């Protein structure tokens, strides 16, 4: 039995994504009173272009470049032994020491919270940041851990049968879009 995903609705197009990211870039600057000691770290894979785009928008607004890192959380997953397909390990690249800094973790979808938990563990092994904040494109609910996002482009209440798919130019090619997909057994 295979599970097919059928597109149910498009939640955001490229323009809505861009506008939402400009908004949360402003929120990041405002909440942190500028960009000093700030680092943006994207969770592989789609968190990476989100972190890079936020850095570019922040640079336009503030005129200063915030360092961007890449975090691979494969080695910190709590479900390795229950997965049928073994995830491929990619490299973690954080260009500056994170000790004492404010880290903004970026990802595309916030769901159970387990990815963020793994990312928090991975970050702690790299150093002791002063603060960690979370920025996501969509928050679809259904948390299994007490984790919340600080910056959300769009809250999307979903059922568990549904899946959020984010298409980002840098990873998927084509135009940026976010869709709700529904599982259809067939």
């Amino acid at each position, binding site marked *: 039995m295979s599970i097919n995903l059928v597109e149910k609705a498009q939640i955001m197009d490229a323009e809505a994504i861009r506008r939402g990211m400009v908004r949360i870039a402003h929120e990041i600057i405002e909440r942190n009173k500028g960009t000093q000691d700030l680092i943006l770290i994207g969770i592989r894979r789609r968190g990476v272009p989100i972190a890079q785009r936020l850095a570019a928008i922040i640079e336009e607004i503030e005129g200063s470049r915030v360092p961007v890192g890449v975090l*691979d959380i*494969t*080695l*910190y997953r709590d479900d*390795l*032994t*229950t*997965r*049928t*397909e*073994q995830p*491929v*390990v*990619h*490299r*973690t*690249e954080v260009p500056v020491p994170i000790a004492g800094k404010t880290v903004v973790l970026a990802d595309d979808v916030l769901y159970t919270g387990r990815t963020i938990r793994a990312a928090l*563990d*991975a970050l702690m*092994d*790299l*150093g002791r940041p002063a603060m960690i904040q979370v920025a996501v494109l969509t928050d679809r609910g259904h948390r299994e851990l007490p984790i919340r996002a600080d910056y959300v482009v769009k809250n999307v209440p979903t059922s568990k049968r549904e899946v959020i798919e984010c298409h980002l130019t840098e990873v998927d090619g084509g135009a940026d879009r976010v869709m709700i997909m529904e599982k259809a057994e067939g």
Partner: protein
Amino acid sequence: MRLSSKDILGLQEMSTTDMQLILDTAESLKEILSRPIKKVPTLRGKTVLTLFYEPSTRTRTSFELAGKYMSADTVNIATTTSSVVKGETLRDTAKTVEVMGMDMVIMRHPISGSCYYLSKVLDCSVINAGDGMHEHPTQGLLDMFTIRQRKGRLKGLKVAIIGDIFHSRVARSNIWGLTKMGAEVVVAGPSTLIPPYIEEMGVKAYTRVEEAIEGADVVNVLRLQLERQQRGLFPSTREYARIFGINQARLVLAKKDHLLMHPGPMNRGVEISTEVADGDHSTITEQVTNGVAVRMAILYLLLGGAIDEAAD
């Protein structure tokens, strides 16, 4: 992605896809070695045994550190202080530790093929850490990893393996691995230390070192296995050093940007001169570091996923 077998027994039987997967994974994992806290929780709750019937410093330590860096528990059995001296068979020793809950046994043994036997006896993963004069697959992989990191590729490179080919499991693993990945491999050494029919493995054999080194991208010098030379296969170490020893004068024949490799431990002044062992082209210490990354990759790929399903 997962490996196609539960065991790592040799590169002769390993597919290029599996080799590629191990090398790519090691590439990502090497970053952990440069962190202040060299520890990830990936293999928490897994237990790895090193069972060594021969002395070893780097291979055993390397496996042990790889396990520790990934949070596996590691146990060592040095056979000189175990029940092996009371006459216990390999099968019984291995079965005993398996029922204690081992997830993986890493074995070095003086008899070629012993790991194949062990892999049939045990349900858990078996890694060959050197079996007699047969294979040393993780050394072959770390050598390939080192070459690939420095040169960006393996395909089309000329690799000269110099020395005691006959007794060398490192040479066999290197030959099988490198030729499968598209490198040209040549070997050279005294005719008494080159096995008959070696060319059937797809390599060219020379008895003059200079011919093999000429134009080589990589010169991999093997240790002269003095402990296996009772039969007197060459007159003296002094004569060996003069005719087959790798020194600056001979390395002039290799490509300008050649790599000089040695699996260690070295007999300085015999198969390799100190001047070149510590020289700019030498990757000897880098090989040791890369060994940990490659072994971490193997542990992750065999123990990190749903291995129960992959086993059969």
